[in-house]
């Protein structure tokens, strides 16, 4: 049982670190909850409290325009003891969610999907990290820890996405689609992961479905997702008593009425924009975000898991309300492709850019908001740098994977410098 012991040790240590941070620094959770890098209007824990208060007092939680999160979170948190009087219950819930995510990640790693999918087998697949290392990298990533302490509801989405993938790699498409529906229900954007995820399910389908054609497989699962989503929506309708929630949750993500600063690129752009162009650019931005799905899915048909990873990286940059929790999810998934790391060219550059931005971001935010000696451009400049670092990382990983595929086709080019013309 040595193996299990290692798992317990990692999970225990991760839980202990989080619990220590929660209890030894009682001011920390509230401090991090207020940070714009962690809490966005659609995931903030503070806003959740507001919604919860309204819900508990039989007022529609969406009155007042503060709460923009899915209705199903309300009964869940209403069941927990109040986070004011019994904060440790909330802490335990968040720690548990993180550990569940790590567990799912470990399962994905164990399946070996990263090195060899059913259609493609990397020549470098021998080089990989064990599931424990990957789970530890996720659990002890400062971004993940900060997210957990800041308690945004995006951790539930993260957990659902990871479970959807972990179920897909073992071929249980039904459960996978269920998890994806929950993720989409909570945050909407994961629905864009459907195409690569369904391909992953298809590639890994069990012996019973071996004879299904892709078309019938997909249409069956589309029905499944539709059904799950409908039932979740209907449940929400019952909980809140009206369909108002659709507008206040998904409408906010789509139309971006709340321009609170965050690490993304949308807020500043839409602050500056004249109102007459707003709808047009909303369309453009969303189109841009979703346009990656088709292209990547087709180009990397043989490695659907990597499509999902790259999409998650792209979402972390170009989402309307991104936070470091999205980045931590991307950084958690990336080590699954450990074998292509030697092919990446700008890891040091990208990671130091991200580190620089991590330090300068809060400094400039402080200068802008508290010291009053800076202005919004300071912080926006840093979010640009942050996005730049992330995009270098995403593009570089993509390059490495493509190069890996290319070397299978042309073994004589192995190790040679190439360039695009």
């Amino acid at each position, binding site marked *: 049982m040595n193996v299990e012991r290692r798992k317990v040790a990692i999970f225990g240590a991760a839980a202990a670190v989080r619990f220590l941070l929660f209890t030894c620094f009682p001011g920390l959770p509230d401090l991090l909850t207020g940070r714009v890098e962690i809490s966005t209007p659609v995931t903030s824990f503070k806003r959740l409290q507001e919604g919860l208060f309204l819900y508990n007092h039989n007022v529609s939680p969406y009155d007042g325009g503060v709460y923009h999160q899915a209705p199903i979170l309300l009964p869940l948190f209403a069941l927990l003891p109040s986070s004011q009087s019994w904060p440790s219950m909330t802490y335990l819930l968040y720690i548990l969610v993180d550990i569940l995510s790590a567990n799912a990640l470990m399962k994905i790693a164990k399946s070996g999907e990263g090195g060899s999918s059913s259609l493609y087998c990397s020549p470098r697949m021998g080089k990989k990290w064990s599931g424990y290392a990957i789970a530890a990298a996720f659990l002890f990533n400062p971004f993940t820890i900060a997210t957990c302490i800041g308690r945004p509801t995006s951790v539930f989405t993260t957990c659902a996405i990871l479970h959807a993938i972990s179920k897909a790699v073992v071929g249980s498409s039904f459960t996978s689609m269920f998890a994806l529906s929950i993720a989409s229900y909570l945050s909407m954007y994961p629905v864009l992961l459907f195409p690569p995820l369904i391909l992953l399910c298809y590639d890994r389908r069990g012996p019973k479905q071996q004879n299904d054609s892709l078309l019938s497989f997909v249409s069956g699962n589309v029905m499944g997702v539709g059904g799950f989503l409908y039932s979740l929506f209907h449940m929400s309708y019952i909980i809140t008593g009206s369909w108002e929630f659709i507008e206040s949750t998904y409408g906010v993500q789509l139309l971006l009425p709340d321009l609170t600063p965050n690490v993304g690129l949308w807020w500043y752009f839409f602050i500056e924009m004249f109102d007459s162009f707003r709808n047009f650019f909303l369309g453009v931005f969303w189109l841009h975000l979703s346009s990656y799905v088709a292209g990547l899915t087709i180009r990397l048909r043989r490695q659907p898991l990597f499509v999902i990873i790259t999409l998650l990286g792209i979402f972390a940059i170009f989402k309307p309300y991104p936070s470091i929790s999205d980045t931590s999810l991307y950084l958690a998934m990336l080590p699954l492709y450990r074998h292509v790391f030697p092919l990446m060219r700008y890891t*040091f550059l990208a990671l130091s850019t991200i*580190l620089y931005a991590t330090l300068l971001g809060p*400094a400039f935010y*402080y200068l802008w908001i508290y010291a009053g000696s800076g202005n919004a451009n300071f912080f926006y400049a840093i979010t640009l740098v942050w996005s730049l670092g992330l995009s270098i990382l995403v593009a570089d990983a993509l390059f490495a994977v493509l190069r890996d595929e290319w070397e299978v086709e042309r073994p004589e080019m192995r190790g040679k410098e190439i360039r695009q*013309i």
Partner: protein
Amino acid sequence: MAPSLPQFSAARMRSYVFRLPLFTRSIIGVILVLWVASYQGVFDLVQWGALIPKEIGISTMYRTNTFPLIHRGVFHTFFNLIALAPLLERFEAEYGTLTSLALFVGPLSTIPALLYTFIERGILGMNTAVLGSSIWVFTLLATEACKTYKTNPSFQLGTVQVPTWITPLVMVVFVSVLVPNTSFLGHLCGLAFGYGWGLGYLKFLAPPEWALRWIEGKLNLLGRLPHYVSVDQKTYGRFGVLPTTNASNISLPTGDRMQVEMGLVGTSGSLLRRDPRLLKVPPYLSFLCIVIGVAWLLVLPLDNYSRKTYISENALLPGQVHTYFAGSDQNVFRGYKREVDGMGEWGNVEVNDKLEEFFKASGLKVARQRYEYTSAGETYSGENIYAILHAPRGDAEEAIVLVGAWTNVEGELNKSGVALVLTLARYFKRWSLWSKDIIFLITADSRAGPQAWVDAYHDTHQKGVQSLPVKSGALQGAVVIDYPFDHRFESLHVVYDGINGQLPNLDLLNTVVSIASGQMGIGASLQKMWQHTDTYKDRLTTMLRGMMNQGLGHASGPHSSFIPYHVDAITLQPYGEGWQDEMAMGRVIESTFRSLNNLLEHLHQSFFFYLLMQSSRFVSIGTYLPSAMLVAVNFTIMAIFLWVKSGSTPSPDSKVGSTSEKSGPLAIIKKEDAVAIVPEELLEARERDFFLPLGVVVGSHFLGVLPLYVFNHTPHALLPIIFYLFSALNLLLPLLISSTLTHSFAPTLQQYQLLKSFSLLFLGMFLSALATLNFSLAFLIGLLAAPLTYIQPFKSTVITALYVVLMALLAPTSVLFAGTWYWNLGVGAVLREAAFGWDVWGMNTQVVVWCVWWPGWVVGVIQLFGRPRVREKGKA
């Protein structure tokens, strides 16, 4: 033929730069040297060398030759060089070095210059000076355009045929419209000459070929000079084809072209990475960064780099109002003064009882606040009292604060200061023109009291501090009077540093200085420079003292506590023996308050980041920030360099011995018919073993929390002992860690490189982030940590020993000790102050010292004692 856009490639760029011919190189060199030389203050190079039409005479003809070589400023030089280099290179390649020399030193600059002088002075009657090599750029452009015109007479724009020779003209127009301060006429003169040359009318100016050949042959120039272009070569150019048809005009089908490029620059990136010359540059570059960073700071006090202060916010109108604080108010002041003198020995509460009476008698609303802080085992407690004058013309949304601490920073009784606050309270109450509330605050001391009051005003107070019973609106500014003596004074000393190096808006300081010196005729000084003679040395001293105060980040007066809340505040201290009396001081305050009363919005117009040289001279952030950034960048450069170095394979000579035993995977490379078997390792970047180094670096940063905690939570009596213990331990700790590392992990050279790389990366990152918040601290720590850049496991014991001594001297503990010795303070007192700052003021300097600088130092010394493992044979 489809135009193929040239692709930027670093390797090609590099080879282009290395192939630049001799004359082009020397011109670039001369221009750069003259540009650098133009920065010295002794001799005005620009004035000496510019082409100024009225100055041209027989003895000043040299100007017609020197003007293209001299530039004004970085951008001018840079852009001209970028434009000039490729054109000049083509010209030289075509005509040869000697011809170019003869032409460019002679007619090519003289003739356009004389033409320009003639038109400007003779015809237009003006006297505009011109400078810079852009005249050459246009001459060369015109000759190129003539050449193009011969092969390719026109291009199509819509339906119009545009002749190609016109393009330089268009460019002249665009440049003169888009770029400010360019000489349209000068460029035209250059063009005229260029067209003349290009059309062949001016060929007679070139020296005869036989002469050149003779010179070249006699001196054997081709053999002696590198990059020399011979006269003979010019017939075919240096490329075997005429230089006018360059590669982009050769129409190759795309496929062929691709193959050509694959063959030529197939391995651009890895070539660059492995170039031994490139790998040698970064250490020098980073050293250069430090030197420039320091030099940058040292030139700041010069007139060219600092500016006179000015009032940015128009609403302030300093010194525009008549002040009425005089006459009978002096009697009031004397009365209050007597009372305050009498209360010198009283307890805090009794004093406040009396003060409350006074304020109430003036018709103000009074409130009190008790506070109690504990720090380093000591308790600091007291009671603040304050009175609010509600604005007759305002709505209590904004307020200004007048502070008089009962005792000042040195602990003296602030007798005249408190009396003046009481008098002014009574006096201000009589006026109906206030549009902002005025709060009169008398704090029990100058350190904890103001902090307690401001914290409570913004509801962020700690336990032990009472909330304020009465409040007013948002604080717009605060002025503190520190006037602890009876006699008349000479000048005002303005203290402006806030906690953690934050500064008040420069407008506030400017207002006070201009009121004091302009309206009242009282001199103002800064940073305890009692005698400022406006010399370089005095300016530099003022600036360095300011940087020291900013870097330490402590409170320099009661005003410091206000600044973190974005309330601009200063302390005014009269000093010296002179003829200014307390009423003059009161008038300065009155006038300042009238100015602040004018404010429509919070002070925001002027600078928040500045260094002051004297009361009327400053440098703004744009000018001084590069110096700290350069020091921080030096670490980053080395970090990147070490990362690259750690990834590249070790030099071949160290491998030769082990080749036979190598069992690593082999890669087969086929190229046409040849097949080669190469160890895979050579082809790929080496895998880096970065877990151990990362662990050590991150671990040492976390270890910094330990001294941080210990020094902030030890009772003050124990502080010196703990400090000496820690200093001793501090010198042993790296040795201990280092030997543990060597014994249990036996790190390789690569791991040591990565260790240093990560450590420097973190250091550079923290310092550049810090430079935006507290410039001085970042600069000072960057300088003290600079030797870490060059530390490594040295082979020679002498160097190691020297470095050990240096590092021992530059340890944070040693620096702290040296500082206390230099300023004649006790270690205990300094540490107690630091703990007080941490507990009460929210000072962050300690965090930077213990969690940024100290870990960097520890990792540095670990490397010094490190012994890299020799690579085992057979291990791939």
